[in-house]
Each structure stands twice: as C-alpha cells, then as structure tokens.
C-alpha cells in the first residue's frame, strides 16, 4: 500500500515551545489562523542571494587550497569579464590612449600596482570606504581617461600618476565585489592573491582582444580620427551616464 500511506502524507513536525514538545499543535493552529504564506518577491530574492553566498562560503571552507586558488583566479577573471563592465571600459580607455607599447605598459603597470594595494587594504578590512563614494568616482575616472585621449594626441608624462590614482579607486571597487562574493576565513591571503591574479588576467584578455581587433588598422592615417577619438568619446559618454546614475 505504498500509495495509501503516502496520501496521508505525514510530515513530522516539531515543538515551538519547550514545555510540551507540541509540533503539529502549533502548525494546525498556524495554518488556520494565518492561512497560506504570502510571498514577497523582493524579500525572497534577497534571501536567496544571501543563501547563495553562504553556500559559496561552505564550499570554500571544504576545498583544498589549490582548488580554492584556482577558484579565486576564475572569480577574479569573471569580475572583469563579463561582470566588470566599468573596469573593462577603463582598461579600454587606457588602450585607446596610445599605441606605443611602452606608454601603455607604464599605464597598465601603474593601474595594476595601485588597485592591488587598495584591494588588499579593503579586503583585509584595514580600511573601508563606502560604495556610495567609490562607485561614482570610478565612473568619473573613466570619463577623465577617455576625455584625455581625445584632448592629447600622445599621453603626457603625468598620465601614469593619474592612472595610479584611479587604480587606487578601482581597487576599492574590486574589494567591494570580492567581499560581496565572500572571502574564506582560512587561506585569506592566498585567495586574495589569486583573485588579484584573476583580475590581471581579465585585464590582459581585454587588452589583447582590443589589440587583435585594431592590429591591421593601427597604422592607418585615419586611426586617430575614426577609431581612437570616437571610441574614447563613447567611453566617456558611458562613464558620464554611470556617474549620474550612481549619484542620483
């Protein structure tokens, strides 16, 4: 009578007060007094997100460090491509500043160095800057870089320093997403390192893709007029849009 037993589908319920462990008791009354559950979509989604993070943390705690390392490299990459659209635009902003390898290298190095510092500081909980300040500033940094690309034909010598400053900002941004993602309690530093490596790899992917795409037209006389400036303008516009979106 498999079926016959199932239709009395019993769930074994339990106490909600210690004195007499009366499980069903409470439930029968709850059902009658409160009727069915009234579901709030928004609350449900927030609860789900929180639960996902807890799941990730449990997974992390159970992983050997090598796996954790690889996982954080992947997370780092993913937080650039495809999730970090603002960082992609910033890096593209750098790319469209100059085709001279040396100049580009300096900028990227300054950017990397800077965001590594702030990422570590913020992720380790040494200092904290609210997202409401960081996020709009990141948007502005994109505008700045892109506008500079249009104004100056070649990068000025201050450029690496400016980029360094902006890098500090972007590091705080990475730290925010990393905290949201969840850092494991054990192997904190290696995980942080791995995430950073991932971020660099993501950055490199963006740069390489961009380089491949413009490879053939890089030496054309119209490169600056038809590619560099329009692309930079568009980047600036998007950055500006984000700025207002994040402030308002």
């Amino acid at each position, binding site marked *: 009578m498999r*079926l016959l037993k199932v239709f009395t589908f019993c769930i*074994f319920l339990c106490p*909600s007060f210690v004195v007499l*462990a009366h499980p069903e008791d409470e439930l029968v009354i709850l059902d009658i007094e409160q009727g069915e559950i009234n579901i709030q979509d928004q609350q449900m989604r927030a609860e789900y997100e929180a639960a996902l993070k807890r799941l990730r943390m449990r997974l992390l705690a159970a992983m050997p460090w090598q796996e954790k390392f690889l996982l954080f490299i992947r997370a780092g990459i993913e937080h650039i491509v495809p999730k970090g659209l603002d960082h992609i635009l910033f890096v593209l902003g750098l790319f469209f500043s100059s085709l001279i390898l040396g100049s580009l290298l300096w900028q990227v190095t300054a950017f990397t160095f800077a965001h590594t510092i702030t990422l570590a500081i913020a992720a380790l909980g040494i200092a904290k800057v609210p997202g409401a300040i960081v996020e709009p500033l990141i948007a502005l940094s994109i505008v700045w870089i892109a506008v500079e690309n249009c104004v100056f034909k070649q990068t000025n010598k201050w450029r690496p320093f400016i980029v360094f400053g902006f890098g500090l900002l972007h590091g705080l941004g990475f730290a925010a997403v990393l905290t949201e993602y969840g850092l494991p309690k054990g192997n904190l530093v290696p995980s942080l390192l791995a995430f950073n490596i991932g971020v660099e790899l993501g950055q490199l992917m963006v740069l390489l893709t961009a380089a491949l*795409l413009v490879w053939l037209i890089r030496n054309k006389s119209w490169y600056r007029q038809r590619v560099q400036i329009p692309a930079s303008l568009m980047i600036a516009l998007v950055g500006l849009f984000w700025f207002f979106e994040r402030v308002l």
Partner: protein
Amino acid sequence: MKILLLIVVIMLFSACQTSTDQTSGNPFDQEWDTPFGVPPFNEIKDEHYMPAFKKGMEENLVEIDAIVNNPEAPTFANTLEELERAGKLLTKVQLVFYNLASSNTNPKLQELQRELSPMVSAHNDKISLNEGLFNRVETIWQARENLDLSNEQRKLLEDTRKFFVRSGALLNKEQKAQITEINSKISGLTTEFGQNLLAETNGFELILDEDDLDGLSEGIIAAAAETAAQKMENAETDEEKAKYKDKYVFTPHRTSMYPFLTQSNRRDLREQLYKSYVQRGDNDNETDNKEIAAKIAKLRAERAQLMGYETHAHFMLEERMLKTPAEVYDLLNQLWKPALERAKVEVADMQAVVDKEGHDFKIAAWDWWQYSEKVRKAKYDLDEAALKPYLSLDNVLNGVFETTTKLWGLSFTELFDINVYHPDARVWEVKDKDGSHLGIFIGDYFTRSNKRGGAWMSSFKGQSNLDGRERPVVVNVCNFPAPVGDAPSLLSFENVITLFHEFGHAMHGILTDVTYPSMAGTSGPRDFTEFPAQILEHWASEPEILKSFATHYQTGEVIPDELINKLLKASKFNQGFANTEYLAASLLDMDWHTIKAEEGVKDTDAFEEASLAKIGLINEIAPRYRSTYFAHIFAGGYAAGYYSYIYSAVLDSDGFEAFKEAGDVFDSELAAKLRTHVYEKGSTEEAMELYKNFRGRQPKIEALLKVRGLDGSTD
C-alpha cells in the same frame, strides 16, 4: 567605429555566458541517474508537476486493475507485493511536490496545491473503495493461517486488510452509502469549524491609546502600532480608518496576546483580551462553533457505530499504541493529579508575589502570564543572550552527529556536488559503522519567507528491500534565524531541542531497514512515532554532551557549568500550568469522542463544564483549547489523539531512563537494542512490542514526572 567597440563588448559577454536552456522531457518520467537517487531538483520545473500527477494516477489505476484482474488466484506475492510496487511515479512526484510546497513554495505551487487536493482524494477513494481489490486481500487474509508468511508479511497483510475495512469494505451497500453521506457531512462541518475560528480570531481587537501601554516593551508597542497601521490601510471607509489612527491594536492571535498578557500592567485590559481569546466560537453569533462541534462528535459516533465500534475513540485507538479509551483515561488520570498539585503550588507562588506587591486581588487566569514571568525571573533566571554564543548551528550539528556516532557508529560526510532545491539546504551522506551507505540527510535550517513556519521531517525517497536495497533520502526543515553579518547562526536552547527532535525523526527515516516500503521509517502509529524523535532530545541536555559541542564561537571556551545548571533548572519552570492545561484539553477530547451516537451532546458549554468539573480543574487555568476552538480535534486529525503528545513523552522519558539506570548515556547494549527494535523496524511489528523489546517491560510514567518536575521535588 563604434561598431568595433560594440563587437568587442558583445564578444566578451557571449564568451562567458554558458547556455543553460535545455528543453527536455518531464524529469518525473525518467529514471533518475542522480547520486543516491536524490531528485534532480535543477531539472524539475513547476509545469512538470501536474502532468506527472495525472500520469502517475493513470499508471497507478492501470496497475491496480492489473492486480484485480489477474486470472491467477490471489496470493501474497501477486496481490500485496504488487500493491507495494504500485504507484511509483505518483509517489515520486508527490514526495517532491508536497515537500517543496511546504519548504520552498511559490504562487504557482500554492495554486497547484489547491487544484490537486480534490484530485488526489478522488484518486485515493478509487483505490480504497475498490471491491475487487479488497476481495483479493480478504481471500488471502482468510487463508492466513495456512500461508507460510514471515512476521513482516503477516503484519503487512493485517495492516492492508484493516485499511480497507476501516474504509468500509465489510459494509453492505446501504451502509456504505450512509458512511459516504456522513463523511461528506463531517468534511463540510470541519471546514466550517475552521473558517468560523479564523473569523472569530480576527473578529476581536483591543484598540489602545498611548496611555494604555503601561508595562509594554518597545518591540511589542511597535508591533501593535504596525498592526494598527495595517488595519488602517485595509479599512475601506474613512470612518473606519479614523478608528485606527495613531492607535495600538492587540488581537486574540497568540503571537499578539501572549506578550500583552505577560507585560501589560493593566489588569482590566489583560482580562478583556484573555476573555476574547477563550470565548472564540462561543459568542452566540453566526460564527458560533458550539453546535458544529456537537454535530461533528455525533456524526463521528454514528459512523463508528456503523463500522461496529462502540465509540469514535474506540475506532481511532484501534490503530494506536494505546488500544482502548480505558487505557488512555488511565494514563491521563495518573498524570492529572501530580500536574494539578504542581499548578496549585504555582498559583500560591504567584499569589505571594501579588500580595508582596501590595495588590488586593486573587490570581485569575488572565494574570498567569504576567506573574509566572515574575516568578521565573526571581527563581529561574536564565539569560538566553548569554547562552546563544555557545550554540552556533555548526556546533550543534556536530553535537547531534557525534551523539549518533557514539550511539551507533554512524558517520556523516557533507556532499557539495549534489544539487538541491535551495542553496541553504545542505546534504550529508550517512554511513554505517562498517562504512556502508545508509541514506542521504538534507538539512534545511534557516527561516525564509517562502517556507511555512515550524519544524518538520519528511523524505524525498523511501526505503525498501523489496526489489533490491533502496536507501532513503530524508530531510529536516526548521526555521532558525539566518546568520547576520559575519557571525554564524546562533540558536536558542529551544532551537537546539528542536534540532535534536527533528534529527531523531530523521534517524527513524534513515536507519529503517524493512522489506516493504509502506512499513518503513516513521509509518507507525501517531502515539509512537514521536518517541524516536523525542528520546533524542534527552541527549541534547546531558551536561556531558552539551560540553562536548557547546563552545563559544569567538573564544572557543566550553559552556560553563553554572549556565548548564540554570538551563536545566529552567526546564522545570511553569510545568504545572503547561501540563494541567494540556491534560484538561486531552481529557476533554476523550470525553467528546466517547459519547454514544444515540445520546449526542445537547449543550456544548454544559458538556464542557461537566467534563472539567469532573476532574476538578481550577479556575485559574483553562484547558489549552476549549471545545469551540479546539481545531486539532474538530478541524484537524487529532480526534481522540490529543493525548498522544504526552504519551510519547512518557515513552521517551522512560526510555532514556534506561540509559540513566545503566549509568552510561551511550551504553552500547542499550543503544543497539534501541536501534534494532525501534529505529530499524518501522511499523513491521506492533508498537508496544517494539517498545517492550527495547525496554524489557511496559512503559511507566515516573520518569516523565521527574523530568517535568511534577514529582514533588521542585521547589
């Protein structure tokens, strides 16, 4: 060149998107090749349920027809075993659906639930009223003495036949028609009873001004203001809205009433609210439940008589561990006196506080919460907040796992590669001491808005040895607070007891080792199935075990003895009251269901009054449920069954006492007996036999009296 940029962005995006859209068939139609037979939750979509239910029912009826029309003479194998095999698809979809409809529901599932309820009961009727099927079972049953059946097979035969007989299989056509008519009348009346109760509970409100709030805490005031604001929002006319403006509202809902009764210093208002609660369904209005209760009881008595039983209680108890009303009355009466004595002491304690405060009144029912709280603070003060840091969920889980490891050598491995229905649901593989697979345990502990309240155990897959070894997938669902910030989820001691309790049910579902699926795990009688759950609670409050898992989540410090002592002492607080109100309700339930059909009940209030006067209930306490709002027995499935809670408690206290007597709470011989005679056996033997095989004798009530401080030892 903008296009160029766009292309770059698009390419980057699409490179990292993995497509998950797969349109495949209904997962319920397929064999699940998932590890350990855990349902493939990620493939099951809301729209799969209804077709699977329909197909499952169809298939089931075809299977039943095949059994009935089998040209061969009925045998145990071609009838009972085939019945056990029937309905696989339906079982599969039912288990997933009803579990998720409780633990992870959504509007679509709620709607399906309403749609399915009449379909499923119509389907079940088709089987339970199938004459051809019963005739085959009956033929085998008549020849049972000459068949070579194992004990388990014998019990299955008895249970199956009893199921049909209790559905009216032995009655003639006319009687069957009468039963059907009575059933439909009862079902209408019970629905009405519930609806009236809901209306009555919502029908009263205590609307207060700012200066009526003396004694209430901020949280309670805020909640009452919120209730008022909500009522204002829902009000239709301006006049009605004005009624709630800047007011505070309390209602006879227990979540609203208990805090008010505990905190409010306004005795007159406490009286008003309390009386509104106990008068529910007894207001001589259109939602009055007095006559409905009497009608239900009379119809039930008539049905029992038609079936050949003396009263409805006789009919219900036939399937329980206590077999007759006399046995139940005997149990309740034995417990009644010590509980009432204790309650009288508690009244005296509270009166002393009243007198000391310089008031001039006698403690009344509506004073109980306020003054018992004052006594509690003075005598048993336990700071819950100081306790919680020692009780993180992970620690408590380790504690309960460790307990079963020490008892039976079980081991638990958390599995991360199994897909379940919600990221908060965790999965463990349970292995026996020889390393063999026993089952899958899913723990879904945190509260969320699409989970019903309370805590329960259920399963996604049953256990059976009929066609090869099939091991179960069992779940515990609770409503513990989710962690906030970086701190882990911290439980109250009450939560810890709940966790051990549900885990006890889970063990019953996982250790079970029977041949026939319908007899597995928790399938036994209601007054027995709580025993394996409740006995495990005792280990949670053993100092030795508490110390092994209750370590501070920040400092790692073990729980101090002083805190443990306070905790254990607090468990005896207010037990006179709790047991008295409960026993009074249990006796009232028995009185209602031992009436004779021809007598019936003319006046519900007088009947209740007589029932309570007979046992000498004091005025300071009302039964936990009065007749007109006793939903368990008049709207739920607890008729002549409300006693079962305390009977299970008798069993668990008496059962645990055996370990105390042995001088070791992990005594290996007793643990082995408990496992083989209780946790493994399902309902393959009479519950009383199972208990006696474990304990070596019938249960006694003394241990329970001691645990609850009703043995005169509490000061």
